[in-house]
């Protein structure tokens, strides 16, 4: 149902597209105008997305702001979009982060500025499309659309060996999405096989029970596709490369939003559609994410390059998120979604801070810096607050997310809770060691002496992030209350016991009733 | 009697084909090709297809053979009949040829169709050509148009290919 009777979701998704066309008409040389127009388009997009938050009805788990238009009737594809408690905040995170990322590039990017801004706008459309589409075909289309602008952004405006990094990033994620394509097609045909109707509507597919052995293969396919994107432990090696070579804005959006598509995919595909498999694979995924948490922390400790350090830290943070999700408890799930938002805010902010000093010194090596506190104190305080939020000190957003995940994990199995409780320790080690070597200590490098403190523009895009860090930290209820019912429904779907359908005998035998425990 | 005529014609076509393939001199092979085409047209006549036989003579034996010989005339004799006749591993070619022959003849022997109405409705009130004309311009009109276009394309292709100013 669509409370606003107004295609707000399509509007939000296609404003950036219109913006991109607008920018493409402008001439290349007045860079200032291009940047300003793009920024205002993105801000308008954010403002238009605010009613989503206010008109969102937290009491129902059904999809809201739904738009459904048949697209290819014969194949059953529809332009079916809508959001619920889970995807609401991811949409808002996207519209909130992209203008900030764009604002940070006003002085950073100055070659091919027009192209860059068009790429950012297209990226925004692609990302929003993924979060709002409820039709698996549409989901896949947007999933591919958002890959190309990111490829261009790292490939063109990236660091020294950007070609290698962007190639690896593209091929790695593309391999994942090919797997996903196969799984989607399998899902599409199997669904027809059992329910006799061709449909790609996600909500519908969630209801059709599938035999276990098929569920297993599809679960594995989706698992691999999304694990590469999350990135979970063994599939994470593209992330440090992509982050080191990406421009600041690219890193912010990559860390802030793109990684969430993986976890979002789990919440939309793996958990609701393959409940039995989720239970069976839960301990495997939890093990992987725990390894991810500790592995990410250990390797982050020894990184000489700040961006690589923060990249490995996001492997660790998202390990937490996956742990919360596959603990399959209400608090764990909510914590995992909150952790996605926190990670978007705090790691995005960390990349922006690294971007600020990178713009001034053009180097990311920790050894190059030292004693910034005495030179640029305001920067040091911002950096300190974002470091604290990523270490999960109480009062900041990190703590709420992590504690909920800990509680959820503890509830599902005491051992998970105890092991992961020590995870927070290592995150403190690598962040504080890095912070000490960059900000404290004496000023040893002469080049650092000329550093200027943060100018107005940098204040402009740091303060909103700061507000969010403390808002989620002190009063997370605004976020949790909105997602409660949707998460409960998701948990019911995961825990629903479908009578096992074996298809060996008659093919079109009607499906036995699906027992859905009322939430 | 028909057996004997068939045998003669078959012999002519096979020897002609072999001749085109084996003969050392390009002109000789062209002539052998014409002989083969004539043999085939004879066989067509035996198969109640007089119009096609005539067509065969005009198109294959006539147009194509003449065209080839005409082009050969353009070229220097030494280039045409240089001594190396066969490719390096030509033996492999022969083996594959024989294999192909074996395969296809096996197909031929195994081939079963119902010969119930053999030789029927090949003529329309007495004339094979009328029948062909009728069927050609009724059921196969569209392919006919397409063939016209193919010929046109071939024409243009040949002209374009042999233009003088292509910078090699």
């Amino acid at each position, binding site marked *: 149902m669509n409370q606003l009777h107004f295609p707000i979701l399509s509007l939000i998704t296609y404003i950036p597209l219109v913006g991109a066309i607008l920018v493409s008409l402008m001439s290349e040389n007045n860079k200032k105008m291009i940047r300003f127009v793009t920024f205002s388009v993105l801000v308008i997009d954010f403002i238009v997305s605010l009613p989503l938050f206010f008109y969102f009805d937290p009491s129902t788990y059904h999809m809201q702001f739904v738009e459904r238009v048949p697209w290819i009737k014969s194949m059953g594809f529809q332009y079916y979009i809508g959001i619920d408690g889970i995807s609401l905040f991811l949409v808002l995170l996207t519209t909130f982060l992209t203008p900030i990322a764009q604002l940070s590039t006003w002085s950073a990017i100055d070659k091919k500025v027009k192209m860059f801004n068009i790429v950012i706008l297209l990226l925004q459309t692609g990302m929003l499309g993924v979060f709002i589409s409820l039709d698996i075909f549409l989901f896949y289309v947007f999933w591919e659309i958002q890959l190309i602008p990111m490829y261009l952004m790292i490939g063109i405006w990236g660091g020294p060996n950007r070609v290698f990094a962007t190639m690896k990033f593209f091929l790695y994620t593309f391999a994942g999405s090919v797997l996903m394509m196969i799984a989607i097609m399998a899902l599409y045909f199997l669904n027809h096989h059992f329910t006799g109707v061709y449909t790609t509507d996600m909500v519908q597919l969630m209801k059709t029970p599938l035999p276990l052995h098929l569920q297993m293969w599809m679960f594995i396919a989706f698992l691999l596709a999304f694990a590469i994107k999350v990135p979970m432990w063994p599939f994470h090696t593209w992330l440090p490369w992509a982050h080191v070579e990406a421009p600041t804005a690219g890193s912010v959006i990559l860390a802030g939003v793109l990684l969430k598509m993986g976890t979002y995919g789990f919440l939309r595909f793996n958990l609701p559609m393959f409940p039995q498999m989720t239970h069976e694979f839960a301990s495997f995924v939890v093990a992987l994410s725990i390894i991810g948490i500790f592995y990410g922390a250990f390797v982050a*400790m*020894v990184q000489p390059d700040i961006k690589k350090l923060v990249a490995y830290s996001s492997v660790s943070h998202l390990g937490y998120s996956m742990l919360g999700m596959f603990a399959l408890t209400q608090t764990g799930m909510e914590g995992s979604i909150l952790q996605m938002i926190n990670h978007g805010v705090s790691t995005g902010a960390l990349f922006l801070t690294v971007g600020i000093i990178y713009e001034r010194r053009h180097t990311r090596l920790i050894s190059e810096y030292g004693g910034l506190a005495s030179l640029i104190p305001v920067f040091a305080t911002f950096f300190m607050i974002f470091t604290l939020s990523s270490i999960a000190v*109480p009062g900041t957003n990190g703590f709420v997310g992590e504690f909920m995940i800990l509680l959820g994990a503890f509830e599902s199995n005491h051992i998970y809770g105890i092991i992961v409780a020590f995870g927070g320790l290592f995150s403190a080690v690598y962040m504080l060691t890095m912070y000490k070597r960059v900000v404290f200590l004496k000023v040893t490098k002469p080049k650092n002496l000329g550093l200027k403190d943060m100018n107005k523009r940098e204040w402009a895009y740091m303060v909103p992030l700061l507000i969010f860090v403390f808002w989620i930290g002190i009063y997370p209820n605004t976020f949790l209350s909105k997602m409660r019912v949707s998460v409960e429904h998701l948990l019911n779907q995961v825990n629903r016991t479908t009578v096992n359908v074996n298809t060996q005998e008659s093919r079109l035998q009607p499906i036995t009733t699906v027992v859905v425990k009322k939430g | 009697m028909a057996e004997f005529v068939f045998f003669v014609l078959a012999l002519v076509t096979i020897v002609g084909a072999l001749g085109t393939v084996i003969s050392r001199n390009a002109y000789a092979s062209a002539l052998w090709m014409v002989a083969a085409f004539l043999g085939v047209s004879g066989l067509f006549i035996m198969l109640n297809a007089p119009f096609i036989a005539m067509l065969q003579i005009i198109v294959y034996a006539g147009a194509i053979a003449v065209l080839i010989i005409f082009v050969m005339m353009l070229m220097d004799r030494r280039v045409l009949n240089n001594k190396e006749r066969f490719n390096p591993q030509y033996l492999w070619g022969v083996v594959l040829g024989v294999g192909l022959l074996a395969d296809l003849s096996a197909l031929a022997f195994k081939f079963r169709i119902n010969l119930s109405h053999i030789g029927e409705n090949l003529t329309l009130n007495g004339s094979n050509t009328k029948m062909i004309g009728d069927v050609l311009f009724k059921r196969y009109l569209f392919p006919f148009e397409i063939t016209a276009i193919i010929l046109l394309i071939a024409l243009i292709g040949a002209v374009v290919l042999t233009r003088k100013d292509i910078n090699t």
Partner: protein
Amino acid sequence: MSGILLFVILAPLIGFLINGLFGKWTKPYAGVIASLALATSFILGLFPIMSVLNGHIVEYSYFTWLPFKEVTVQFGLRVDALSAVMLFVVTFVSTMIHIYSIGYMHGDKGYSRFFAYLNLFVTSMLILVLGNSYLLMFVGWEGVGLCSYLLIGFWYEKDTASDAGEKAFVVNRIGDAGFTIGVLYIIYYFGSATYSNVFPRVEDVLSPAAATIIGLALFLGAVGKSAQFPLYIWLTDAMEGPTPVSSLIHAATMVTAGVYMVARSNAIFSMAPIAQEVVASVGAFTAFYAATMALTHKDIKRILAYSTLSQLGYMFIGVGIGAYWTGIFHLMTHAFFKGLLFLGAGAVMHSMRGLLSIDLMGGLRKKMPQTAALMVIASLAISGIPPFAGFFSKDAILGHALEFGHPVIWVVGEVTAFMTAFYMFRFVFTVFYGEEKVPGLYHELHTHEAPSVMTIPMWVLGIMSIIGGLVGLKIGGHIPFEHLVTQIAPNTEIPNEKHYSELILIGTSVTMGLLGILSAWLVYIKKIVTAKSIANTFKPIYTLLANTYYVDEFVAYCIVKPFWWVSEHLLWKIVDVKIIDGGVDAAGWLAGRLGLLFRIFQTGFINQYAYWVTLGFIILSGWYIVKII
């Protein structure tokens, strides 16, 4: 009343915001703002303390902080007997130290930043103490750890200071992990973390085994925060921070958070005798172990740090044996005299321009009479000489240790008391009495008495460390704040009948204290047997003690260094780069290799292509013939 209680916490927070945000403009009077904020908080704090004294507990909850499905955590404050004492101690001592540090930090570059951090510290300490649930205590717990990180590494130019700050935070984090596990278990068993509905239901919900697990987990947190045996390494390095910081955080308030937490969860601990035993024995061992190290150290602040460690050990003995109120009582008195000792050391350092080693100092009493007198008072208090505060609290702990049947701990306690007296008076005699060791040093450094803004708070603390003990004096058979005691630990009865007569208890502890002072007097003043000679008679023991059992080196080389080496060479260079990344790149290389393989077919000879075509055809038709027809 709820507004006042809330404002007790908000006052220092506002102080922090003012100094933090407008540091540049409020630089000259940042100290005054901070101290005012603290004073208001202290005065406002008196109201809830009064209401607790005349009997009823104050508890208000303000808003829901974490609305989880299983447990809704309210942001609420609670003042009962235990937190009233803590509230009084924290606000009183920090006000004094704020006033003192106005003088001490005068002219320092980060003046307003220092006071901002100090105010933030007091806020989080108050949240820790006044919070009405374990989660709020955890918030204060980590907040306090954060502020100690900021304040230890205050002079961030010095890399030893920033290293020390980071070390403190990480070691505290180890403790916090234990604390988190404890809290998780509590939430799991009780379905809530607030004290009011956890403690009453302890008997019926928890089994002894569960209580032991929770007890030990919580105690791991206490060990991390209050620097007990395994995790004490950060406290001695924390002396890198400015002296007011050491006195406030590392003597009076933060390190006692662990004791407070154990005392607060007395219901759980009393259910778990094993956990209590562990707490008491770790406390005893740390007390003895730290005292030995204090005997030989040269640096003033390090001696005081080790003495804090050992006094904390005493508190944990008190809390561990079940006499919770004795632990808290010693905590209070210790806050006064240890705070004074640190402030005195700060005054000495201040006037000696940061000189720390006691060998260079001698006969300071001529130059700094007031400080000398105060230091003597504090040393007498800590050694447990009757009229002073230390005697009552330490005697209470040791007495109860004997009462509750822990003779071994009692013996260890007495020996440590002797050592405490010895090293305190070794410090006092070498620094203040005797002659100038380096002639003309004082003149050249023109050492003078500390300014009045520093001596006044020291005098106040001096008085408190004298009369502070009277609280515990037995007037007419029972202790004045009787109900205070019973409220702290409702279910621990105070044994009325005494196995051992009062006299023996008091007698032994007093003689131990006097003996320590006497021996120190003989060695350092009379010099009948010089410290040097003792040192080289027990050469090996002396060197061992001098460099603190080589523990720091052990931790650095046997834990930290291999840890870094493994994660660098093994995890990063090999596993990540070679195996996983290598695997991915190998997939790319394999594709390349396959491409090369297929190039062999492109020979360029047209006839060979014809061969392949015909071969393909033959195979296909062959298969067709065999299979189909």
